[in-house]
């Protein structure tokens, strides 16, 4: 499936992502700047913060309880569509997903 990350400088990275991978792992594999994933997806760091494009909000769902708490400690201010990308898993229904990397 394809995923596009929109970066703060206006550029975009589009990459092929394997189903089952988290979007944090996919971002690291594709060197997406601004998505760091320091804790490997254990929800200890909030450094894989992304904002889900409006069109994809319903498909990606809402953050869980722990994720919600960690979204309060992100580097860039939290937005209504903020998610930790380690908590979104690549799946067929997300083909074409657009994620915005927020500016600090």
């Amino acid at each position, binding site marked *: 499936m394809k995923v596009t990350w929109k970066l703060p400088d206006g550029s975009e990275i589009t990459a092929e992502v394997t189903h089952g991978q988290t979007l944090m792992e996919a971002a690291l594999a594709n060197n997406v700047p601004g998505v760091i994933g320091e804790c490997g997806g*254990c929800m200890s760091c909030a450094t894989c913060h992304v904002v889900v494009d409006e069109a994809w909000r319903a498909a990606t769902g809402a953050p869980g309880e722990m994720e919600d708490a960690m979204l309060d400690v992100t580097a860039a201010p939290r937005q209504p569509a903020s998610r930790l990308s380690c908590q979104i898993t690549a799946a067929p229904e997300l083909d074409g997903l657009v994620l915005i990397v927020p500016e600090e």
Partner: protein
Amino acid sequence: MTVWEPADNGHADLSSHDSFVDGPPHNTFARLRREDPLHWTEYPGGQDFWSVTRHADILEMNRNWEVFSSARGIRMEDQTEEEYLARRTFQETDPPEHSRMRMKLARAFAKPVMARYEDDIRELCHDILDRALEKGTFDATKEIARQLPMRMLGRVVGLPEEDLPWLVEKGDALIANTDPDFTEHVLDRMDTDEYRMLPFNSPAGAELYEYAQELMARKEREGDTSGVLHLIREPADDGSVISETEFRNFFCLVVAAGNDTTRYSIAAGIQAMCHQPELLEQMKEGGDIWKTAPDEIIRWATPALYFRRTATRDFEMHGKTIRAGDKVLFWFASANRDEAVFDDPFRVNLSRSPNRHLSFGQGGPHVCLGMWLARLEVRVLFEELARRLKSIEPAGPHRFLRSNFVGGIKELPVTVVPA
């Protein structure tokens, strides 16, 4: 010019603190990465252990906390259940217990919260550097690296300035408990059994306990809610509060671990500047280098040489079986020199990017809580140092801490020429 040549013969005993007195035995780590990445290491002081030395393996295992648990201790030394319970902090717990405490603290140590300290740090750097540099020749660990984290500890935790030297001395006695320069109670050289219920088996733990208790009582009387200590005593959403023992252990953790790690990162950065003169030039040019330099300096330093985990079930790797109950050490010091991940790992490259070093224990739930403060302190310190220097060079050999747990240059004689 290389910054520093490892001195070991490729077969150093990783279980011995003495193998680290000339710096980490990197020839041994390089050989293990190549020949035996999951190495059974004999430990005369207790249960033998597995040494994991490759970056990719540590990253994979560190996230797998269900198999590689922190709840049986995080150091090589073995603990009884009783000792563990008396001494543990949230470092020695696994999710979900770990996550509950972590959430509470994450707010206090979040990047935007830490960013507010930048002016404080800069002001402290002015004072520290002006005093140190006018000496011309001095010990950079003592006069610079030790000073900044100690004084920031006071601001972040909310401690009186006049107590800080005493606290840091006690913190050193705890964490450098294997180096006779820092403690009279050298862990592996005498019977520290009397202190086994205290953090790091050290009598300094008892003094810090007492201090923490008096401090909190005084703060309560005065209605002083500054700093992070207040925050962790607040009840959680479910009404639970931290126990007295947990609180005191956390206090020791902050004083000890939160302090010497940044110190040794700063020291390693200064040591690198002494041996790679281009670093000062690059720092002086400034710009984007400051986005990447702090992590490279912290990679170079790797103050936490390893953390230990304990296998909860059998696990196959590299054709071997780690058995349930086995002790496993993640050697971050080795991962940070892994040639499979880092080009020219023995050189400091301030613009290295990406820089997936593991100095903060990246890749697992226990990734360093204070990493944003550490990066900020390192950046501001080197910005201010570079601005003031024309040149810096060694004024004699540097000496490492006697410890296979904390990697640090404890003595760093330098001569500076101010700009």
